[in-house]
């Protein structure tokens, strides 16, 4: 059954997959840092999904409902819903999305570039979730 995106169920499904994907665990063995996915819409407030990633393991994941009390995160990846859909459907390459600013990256770029293989495995894992897009 497809899991709706963006939602708490989807990000928890991602957590589960990440923690059962050996390729991600290996590629992300040096990754330290939590992050937000910020899904931007034209006519409503953005949706925020939080994941805490630590040395190839996802320690926590949830959809943010109260932005005031949400934890600070090392990274924020923000994009329109359309571009998130394209990446998850493999219609937009994640490197291309970052390079062209279709996904905006806030945070330590040195850490990000050191761990591009982890980013690619992360996206590959996310693409495997059967997803229903809440447009």
């Amino acid at each position, binding site marked *: 059954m497809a899991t709706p995106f963006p939602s708490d169920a989807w990000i928890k499904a991602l957590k589960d997959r990440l923690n059962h994907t050996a390729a991600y665990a290996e*590629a992300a063995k040096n990754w330290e840092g939590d992050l937000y996915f910020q899904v931007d819409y034209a006519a409503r407030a953005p949706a925020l999904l939080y994941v805490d990633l630590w040395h190839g393991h996802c320690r926590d994941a949830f959809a943010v409902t109260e932005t005031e009390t949400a934890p600070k995160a090392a990274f924020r990846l923000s994009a329109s819903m359309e571009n998130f859909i394209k990446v998850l459907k493999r219609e937009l390459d994640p*490197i*291309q999305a*970052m*390079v062209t*600013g279709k996904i905006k990256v806030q945070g330590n770029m*040195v850490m990000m*570039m*050191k761990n591009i*293989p982890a980013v690619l495995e992360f996206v590959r894992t996310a693409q495997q979730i059967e997803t229903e897009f809440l447009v």
Partner: protein
Amino acid sequence: MTIDLTSGRTATISLEPALLRRYLGGSALSAALLYPRLTRDLDPLGPDNPLLILNGPLSGTAGPSVGRFTVCAKSPATGLWAESNCGGFFGPELRFAGYEGLLILGKAPSPAYLWIHHDHVELRPAEHLWGQADTYLTQEKIRVEVGERLARVLGIGAGGERLIPFSLLLCDHGRVAGRTGMGAVMGSKNLKAVAVRGTRKIPIAREVEFNRLRSAANLELRNSTTSTVFREMGSANGSEYFDFMGEMPKRYFTRGVFEGAERVSGAVMTETLLTGVSTCHACVIACGRKVKLPGEAEGKGPEYETIVGFGPQLLVDDLAAITRLGRSCDAYGLDTISMSNVIGLAYLLYSEGKLTAAQAGGPLEWGDPSGAERLIHFTVRREGLGEILAQGARALGRHCGVEEAAVQVNNLEVAYHDPRASSGMALAYATSPRGACHNQSDYFMVDLWKDTSYSGGELQDPRAGAEKSADVALHQDWRTVHNALVQCFFASVPLETTLNLVNAVTGFDYLLDELRQVGERAWNLKRAINHRLGLSRANDTLPKALLTPYAEGGSAGLVPDFPAMLLAYYAARGWDEATGRPTRATLQRLGLGEVADDVWRTD
């Protein structure tokens, strides 16, 4: 301006607007200007080889990353067309002095340097610098001698003085015209350096419009993700990615995996040695690295090619050692890509028992940078094996009975972007007019960095074959435009922005495809020059190593389908399949009818 070093005479060349419109400037215009002079019997190290230092219409303006100039001649490395472009501040300063370029002919009777300050042009003695001053000290001493602290100096080191065919020109904080041996050409003319100072205004056809456009372009460029990572991590920002994809060669192109590669990336340099950044003229990217090694003064940090060449290619994982090797090459005026290739081959041959420790002056163990340091010194002194090393990788391979082991095309050593992971680089290396070069088409940026601005937004499979040949040709056309402007490849601004800037600065009002065609015309003209210099279809080839699959790593098992790619490329280019020459129809379409007569004269 033309200067004949033999007679000391100078002259001014006026260029017709129609010629400028057809070729813009930089290496494209250089090809047009040098075409009549480059012949098969011309000795690259003889006095008749013209050395042309040329700017482009954007050089020295405040446009996005346009502080570059180009240096062209017949190459002592390849015997073919030579071009190499360089950043820093020298090119802009030449324009501020009132000159678009310098055509240097003849040979000075004794070592000399050229001092240009507006209309003052003087050939000064340089015996006290020759054999004495490295590329940095040369700059310092000349600035003192001419009494201008702000003078910009482009000079050679011992490599150029000793006519090493991969010696370079260096200016400012280690900005180099590195490839094809322009240092040796300058050295063959007994010319140690060119110093210049000027304060004149650069001509801009529509200045208000240009200023508005360049402000917007620089703002966009500064804020782009690509510029951010170049600023924060230098040109080696993509090391981990290239390593992961199997695009970074290791152990002289024989291995796809080296665990130590992750310890010598641009990111690691930022976290460990980096003390600051440096820029070229008016550039908002600032990719240059300043690093401090323990017990040493702050100096230039290595860029991607130097890191890979002296790092993973030798299985060295010591960033400080790599930095020192790069600095040594800069000071001697040697191209780090070629020098590290030659050394990488020496290490490989040593590991295979084809080169002995006695020949190499000691062991050449993978992972040990001391052997590399020793070979650099041997090379620049042409001492022992250094006499062979100084002729390049092909000569070393031949010396050891395995010429085919040298990873080169037309005697220019291959840069460190592997076509086994980025198949477009197969054509980029094989068809480049100056030998294996990533600065005629950095197609890995399309294949891996996903820069689709040159291919209508279409993503490429990095391992695709003949279906991408036409796109490689298109990319080469555009990169030839950039090399005409002269604009840094790191300036990732949209083509429309570049078009608008060019039109505002020149007043030519090109359409986008007309601008592209400037690149295509120059590409074909360089091909015609190379045909005259002896290049044939057999030269469009790749070395054996690049057609041998890796056993491991991100590109394991893959090799580009090169023969099919090349045939499709010829078709896309409008080149004759049997000879590799541009057809008459192609040359005539590009307004090169007179060149067609030359190319096809023998038939």
